[in-house]
Each structure stands twice: as C-alpha cells, then as structure tokens.
C-alpha cells in the first residue's frame, strides 16, 4: 500500500507539469532544449523531405531540439495514431509531437479535442504573419483559434508542357474541350488523395454559378443540385482521361513522372513553385510552365499542429516558430528548395528580410504573386468528404 501511494505521489507532479505555457517563451525555449520532436509529415515528396532535414539541422543548432521526420503516406495515419492513443489512455508522451495538417484532418482533430493549444498566436514570429491577406486564421472555413500554426501558402496551379500545349486554359470547360480533342493526355490523382480531391473541389468551384454556397456545411446546402455540374463534367471528362480513367496516379508527385515520360501533358499542383523545383531535379522537362484559371484558383495554408499528448510540446512549438521565421520562409519560397508561398506579410518584415524576399528569383515556371491572381476560398471541409465519397461510389471501383 505504502509503495503504491509513493508511486502516485511521484507521478502526480510529473503529469501536472507536462504542458508548457507558450506565453512564457523563455521557459518554452528552456524546456525544449534536448527534446526530440517527431514531426509526422507526408514523405512522398523528396524536396519537402530535404527541407525538413534542413529545419532539423537549424533547430538543433539554435535550440538543441532534435527533429525526426516520420514519413507518412497519408496524413490521416497520424490522426488515427493520436485517436488510438487517446482510446488506449496514452495521454502523455504519445508517438507524435507535430503534424503537418490542414482541412478535414484538422477539423477532425480539433473537434475531438486531440490538439494542444491554443499556441500559434503566442509564438514570437506570429508578429510577421500576414493575417489580413492570407487565410491563416481559418482552415477550410474552420476557425483555427491558435490550434495550428501556418508555415506555407498553397494555391492550385496547373502545370503544362509547352511542347505539347500551345496556350494555357482559362476554365475547367476549356480543359474538358482540350481533353476531348486530345484523349489520354490528362489525369488527376485518385481521390481520396489530397490533390485528387482538390482537383474535384477546383472543378466544382469553377463550374458552380454561385461559389458562396460552398462555404456552408454540405448538410445545409442542396447538395445534388450544387454538385450536378461537377458530375456532368466528370462524366464527359473521364473517358478522355489517361488510361480512359481506368487507372489514376496515386499521388500528386506521381504526375510529374507521367509528364516527364510524355504520358500526359498537364497536371494539377497545389504549389506554385513545384514545377520549377521539379525541373531543377530533372523530374520535369524544362518546357513545363504553370497557369491559373481566369476566375482564380483555390488556395489555403499548410499548418503544423501539436497533439494533446505530445511529450515534447515545447520542442514542437520551437519548430513551429522556426517554420514561420523569415529565414525558413525565405528558404521555403526558394524554387531551388521548395517553392512554397510564404505566410508572412512583407510590410511587417525588417528591411533586410524584405529585400531578401524581393531578390528571390522565383524561377522559370513559377507565376508571380500578381499572375497568381485571385485566391478562391476552400469549400467547407464537409464538401470534400462528401464529394470524395461520391467519387469513390461512381469511379472508385471497376464498374
């Protein structure tokens, strides 16, 4: 008996002191020193993997935090992991300390109270973040409320090979017309892959008359009526797709290989700088350029979130903060590295940093911020779930 109460006494203060306070940054830095942060991030892109390695080196130098990249094939795996741990009662020192996340996965984790925070707006580098021009405080229309911190802006662009396509297209309908005239030259990643569902959403946004309906949850909208143009579009498009729509690339980057092999001429991307980076890595021919649609394309921010049971929340916040630093943002925007859009506001930056951003050559296949044009809002995440389900029913199995 005595033994047990002693153990309990030893355990209680330990559990109580587990969560660091982001408003006391000095204390966070102290606690972070020596911690190992397991960052669960999709591992299918070699350029992103390289960037994460670099981040690891920098936070190790500056703050003594060890960063381990856990390479996922699907971000949902990480969500599942945290859920399983919660069921199993693993409420401290879980397997995951940081997740690259957004959209439905964030909504699910926030809803289920699986996140640590709020912390994002307490981070020192939050001061530089562009809170007005960029969608960093809502994530697919779900309020962020400090439970995840942004580190990259993404916007849909289409990569096309100028050796095969003379001029870019202005709308989804034009893409359809071209695909009909040139069958087998276009495809998109198979939903529920993130980029695949993005293509469906982009098509929906471009095809509906009044996109504002998409900002409500799907339950509150006349779903059949709103999505009818999308399904009609896919009915026409699918037979003209690569492999007649009988097979799809499994991920976004897999499309790059298809373009390089000359199997397809065009592909969707959620990163305006991806084409330039891929050309540098020999993954794309140097004749590839990008375009956006006339009405604009959808965009969102990539975030990092910290699970509620992370044993290294302090270290994770240090990494999250570093990701928002001008140094990391500049590197991420460098097309030779990642080519991701920055989340920072240029007018909030110190002079030297602003000059560095302006001096950056975005590369041959990257559109300038002006050319990227208007960013359209992501539909409410419930749309994505519903559309992906419907797609699976219609196209997901051999008919």
């Amino acid at each position, binding site marked *: 008996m005595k033994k047990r109460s002693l153990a309990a006494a030893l355990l209680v203060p330990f559990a109580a002191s587990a969560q660091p306070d982001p408003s006391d940054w000095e204390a966070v830095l102290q606690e972070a020193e020596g911690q190992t942060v*397991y960052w669960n991030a999709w591992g299918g*892109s070699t350029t992103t993997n390289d960037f994460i390695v670099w981040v690891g080196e920098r936070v190790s130098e500056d703050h003594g935090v060890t960063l381990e990249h856990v390479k996922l094939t699907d971000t949902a795996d990480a969500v599942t992991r945290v859920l*399983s741990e919660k069921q199993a009662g693993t409420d401290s020192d879980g*397997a995951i300390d940081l997740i690259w996340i957004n959209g439905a996965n964030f909504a699910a984790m926030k809803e289920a109270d699986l996140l640590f925070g709020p912390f994002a707006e307490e981070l020192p580098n939050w001061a530089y973040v562009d809170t007005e021009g960029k969608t960093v405080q809502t994530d697919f229309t779900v309020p962020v409320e400090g439970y995840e911190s942004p580190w990259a802006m993404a916007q849909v662009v289409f990569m096309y090979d100028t050796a095969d396509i003379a001029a870019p297209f202005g709308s989804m309908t034009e893409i359809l017309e071209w695909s009909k005239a040139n069958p087998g030259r276009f495809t998109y990643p198979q939903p529920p892959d993130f980029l695949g569902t993005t293509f469906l959403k982009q098509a929906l946004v471009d095809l509906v008359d009044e996109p504002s309906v998409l900002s409500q949850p799907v339950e509150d909208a006349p779903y059949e009526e709103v999505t009818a143009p999308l399904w009609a579009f896919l009915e026409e498009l699918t037979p003209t797709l690569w492999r*007649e729509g009988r*097979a799809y690339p499994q991920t976004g980057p*897999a499309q790059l290989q298809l373009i390089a092999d000359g*199997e397809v001429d065009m592909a969707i991307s959620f990163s305006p700088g991806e084409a330039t980076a891929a050309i540098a890595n*020999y993954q794309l021919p140097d004749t590839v350029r990008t375009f956006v649609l006339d009405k604009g394309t959808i965009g969102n921010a990539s975030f990092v979130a910290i699970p509620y049971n992370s044993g290294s929340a302090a270290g994770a916040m240090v990494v999250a903060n570093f990701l928002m630093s001008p140094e990391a943002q500049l590197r991420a925007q460098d097309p030779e590295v990642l080519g991701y859009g920055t989340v920072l506001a240029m007018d909030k930056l110190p002079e030297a940093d602003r000059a560095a951003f302006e001096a950056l050559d975005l590369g041959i296949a990257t559109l300038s911020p002006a050319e990227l044009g208007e960013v359209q809002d992501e539909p409410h995440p419930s749309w994505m779930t519903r559309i992906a389900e419907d797609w699976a029913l219609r196209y997901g199995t051999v008919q």
Partner: protein
Amino acid sequence: MLRHVPLLTLVVMLGPVAAGLWGTLLPAFGHLPGAGLTGPSLNAMQDLLNWPGLVQAMRLSIVPGLLATLLSLVIVVLVTAGWSGTRTFGLLQRALAPILSVPHAAAAFGLVFLIAPSGWISRLVSPWLTGWDRPPDLLIVQDPAGLAMTLGLVAKEVPFLLLMTLAALGQVRQEQRMKTARNLGYDRVTGWLKTVFPPVYRQIRLPVYVVLAYSMSVVDVALILGPTRPPSLSVQIVKWMGDPDLTLRLTAAAAALWQLGLVVLALLLWRVGEGLVAALGGRWIETGQRRCLDQGLRLTGLGFGVLATGVVTLALVGLLVWSFAGFWSFPSALPDSFGLRNWSRHGPGTVAAMGETFLVAGLSTLIALALVLGCLESEHRSGRTVTTRGLWLLYLPLLVPQTAFLPGLQILLLQAGADVGRLPVVFAHLVFVLPYVFLSLGDAWRAWDPRNAVVAATLGAPVVFAHLVFVLPYVFLSLGDAWRAWDPRNAVVAATLGAPPARVFWRVRLPMLLRPVLTAFAVGMAVSVGQYLPTLLIGGGRVATLTTEAVALASGGDRRAIGVYGIMQTLAALLPFALAIIVPTVIWRNRRGLHV
C-alpha cells in the same frame, strides 16, 4: 533453463499470432471498447458486405494468388524436368541465385519501370520499331485483372521454389530414378514427371502453401503493381486501418477475418487440386506413355526460366540507371545525362534508414538465433527432435496472412500501452524471423547425428528458405553436402576427453558450425530487412527502415529516389550473405577441413 527454451520459442513465435488474431476477432464483431463500441454486433460485417469493391478486391486476392503460385510451380517443374543435370541448368541456377536476395518491393519498383508503356522495354523498341514517340495509352501496370502484380510475384517466387526443389532433389535420388526411367524408354520430361515429381512435391508442399498464402495477402507488391479501383483486399485493409474514421477499423478487422478465410479456402482448394492432379497423374502413369510434347515442354520451361531471370535482372539494372539519371525523357533508352546528384540528395537518408534497418534486423535475428540454438541444443541433449506436427507449428506464422493478425496486434499493443518504437517492432519481426532461422539452421545442426540427419533432410532441407528474401543457393547446397559428410562422433570424442556439454557446445559444435550459423543469421537478417507491414503497423511510423521508406517514396513516384532506395535495400539484404560467405573463409583459411 535450457529445457524451457523450446516452449519459450513457441510462445514468442506463436503468441503474437494468436494475440493478433484475437485482437482482430473482437473488433470484427463490433467490440472496440477504446472507441466506446461494445459488441457483439454484425455491423462491421454488414459494412464490409455493403462495400461496393468487395467482390473485386476478393478476386484480386484469390486470382493473382492462385495464378502466381501455379505459374511459379509450373515453370519450376518444367525447368527442372527438362534441364536438371545439364550445363544450362547450372547457368540458370547461378543466374537466379542473386535474385533470391532481392527484396520484393525493390523488384516490384524495377518491374514497373520495365513494363510500363513508358518503360524500358517500350523505350528500347521506340520509335524505330513501334513508331511511338510518346508512350502508348495502355493499361499495363495497375491493370484491373492484377496481371502485373501476378508477374511481379511469379518473378520472385520462381527462384524460391526452384531452390526448394533443388534441395528436395538431393533427397529423392533423382539420378537413379531418371536412369531407370530413361532405360525403360521414357523421354526426359515425361520420365521426370512420372518418377521424380511425386516425391519432390511431397517435400516442397509446405513452401508451396507459404507462397500461396503470401501471394494472396501481399501488401507492398500490390501497392506498387496492383490496381487501385479498388485495390486487393489486403491493401484495402491497411487503408482502412489508417483511416481517421474509427468505424472503418471495425471494417478492417472484419475484412482481415475475411482475408484469413480466403486463404484457408484457397489452401483447401489447392489441396483438392493436388488430389485431382495425383489421380490424373496416376492414370497417366498407367498408360505407359513414353513421351508427351517433351521437346516443346523443355523449351517452354527454359523460355520462362530465362524470362523470370531476365525480368528481375533488368528491373534491378533499371533501378541502378535511374539512381544515376539526370533528365530522361521518352523514348530515350538512356538518360540525357548521368550524375551523382540523386545519390547526394538521397544517400544520407538511406544510410540513416539502413542503420535502423540493421538495428532492428540484428536484434531480432540475434534473439531468434539464441532461441533456435537453445532449442536445438536442448533437443540434442534430450534426444527429442521436432515432429511433423512441430514443423506445422513453425510454418503457422508464415501461413496466417499478415493482414489478418497484424492489425489486431497493433490494437492490442496500443491498449497495453506498449506501443511504438523499436522494441515492439523487433518482436513483431521475430515472429517472421524465427521460423526461417529455425528451418535454415536445424538441418545443419541435426546433421551432426546421422539418424537425425535423415529426419532433417526429408523435412528440414526443403523448407530452409522463405519467399520474402532468399539465400544464395550455392551456400545452401554446399552446406547440405558438407554437413552430411561430417562425422557424428565429434561430440562423443569431446565428451570422452572430459568436456562437459557446455564446453562441447561452445568449443566444438559452435565453431565447427560457424558457416551454417552465419548463413542462418543472414537468412534472418534478410527476412527482417524485407518486412514492410509489421514495421509500418507496429512501429507506428517511428521506425523508418529502408523498406518502409522505399514504399512511402513509391507513392511519390520519384524514380530517382526509388532507384537509390531500391539499390540500397537490395544491398542491405545481400550484405549479410556476403559476410556469411567471407567470414568463415577468412577465419578458417588455414583449416582445410572446414573449406566448402
């Protein structure tokens, strides 16, 4: 202490399988208390049955599984029947040797690039022959029938079954049987099929079952080569296991039971087929027919044998070329430029992953080796050997589909709080490593005693190696012969000289058996290196080995990165074998009696 080792070994090997099946059974019937669900209910089964892809996913488990097993067996039988004992056979055998150690995933990556419409074969004949300056829009990889997947499996199973057959041939006195048959006027193939095949098949039956169970439930090969609308049942199980929607886990568990049932059903079907073939064969023997398309069958066998060798070899060369490639467009047969950029980008990552790979593999194999040596020594001292029933127990972890018990094991480990990290992965690997170490070492070990050597030769030898990764046949073949020639009385002499059992073990038996011990170690390492699903599910993603990294990269389709990882993965499997050959040679360089 030593007395309890066999029991401990069984627990370590079968415990996780039994626990995993239990952990699968509960959620399959709606019981997952962690998620607030208590059963029993049939909801999960209902959900599974309502899934529109079920029939197709099942077909993708059964058809490629049976087809790959059947094709591999037929090719091996034709090659052996038509060519064994010839120089051609020796050459083929030598060419197949290195292929045995190529991990499935690496071979599959290479195969994709080989056979895709934009692949190497297509490039080599374009545009001068085909007129293609763009790849044709043909559905070759990821075809809905699963043919590409079947091809990938066949290319890897042929070397495995051939090795099993070679081991069995030594035990059935093939030459004597063939001489008799030829004297009676039988042609080569017909004579072999009628006189040698029946006893050989009896010995390779269990390995054939392993091939069948494995082919039906394979995940990594199906992810790379298989169709996706829908994928095969096992791949879908893994997808459901990873879905944030918890109810899908119940569906996954239900599907896992379904998968187990399918494998059992297929095994029964195969057994019925065996009976049928035996009956037909019996009638054929009675006809006294001396020849039946012999020349044609010989050439067909050789053609397929060469094809199987060529495909994997070319696939590996393809990986190598991609790992050094600059930009490489269709239809160029070679890259526009070569360079080290890919290696400098991905090389460091592979080194880190290789460290983790060897750590997990080394730990699990060391534990396996200690347990197996303990079993064998205990067996030696007590005079009891493994029975046929015991052999089935050894095979059990290899016959139960991984997708049937690993999900349950993950759920149980999580509930026990023993999740994540290296150690659970080590023990999960142990389940698969132990049988192989046992089977590959038991033979040589028991061959010390001539009476047991008979048992080992008839039961042990054909099952020494596995389909996941294989051993170099010449090591195995030379070992078998060497150990059969050993004098059994070493132990008697050592004991009468006053050496107690422990001293005999450490000073005489172990050093003399250094070569088979190291070979068994290499087999264990190679098995562990090739493990994808246990590492992924039990490691919770934290344990990144070459295989999990390579399969994750495959989803990104970056052939240069895949090339680097595939080559490193192959090297990781080969290295222990190289050491198993080199180390004893160096240590015993002045001991002619131990040269092979």
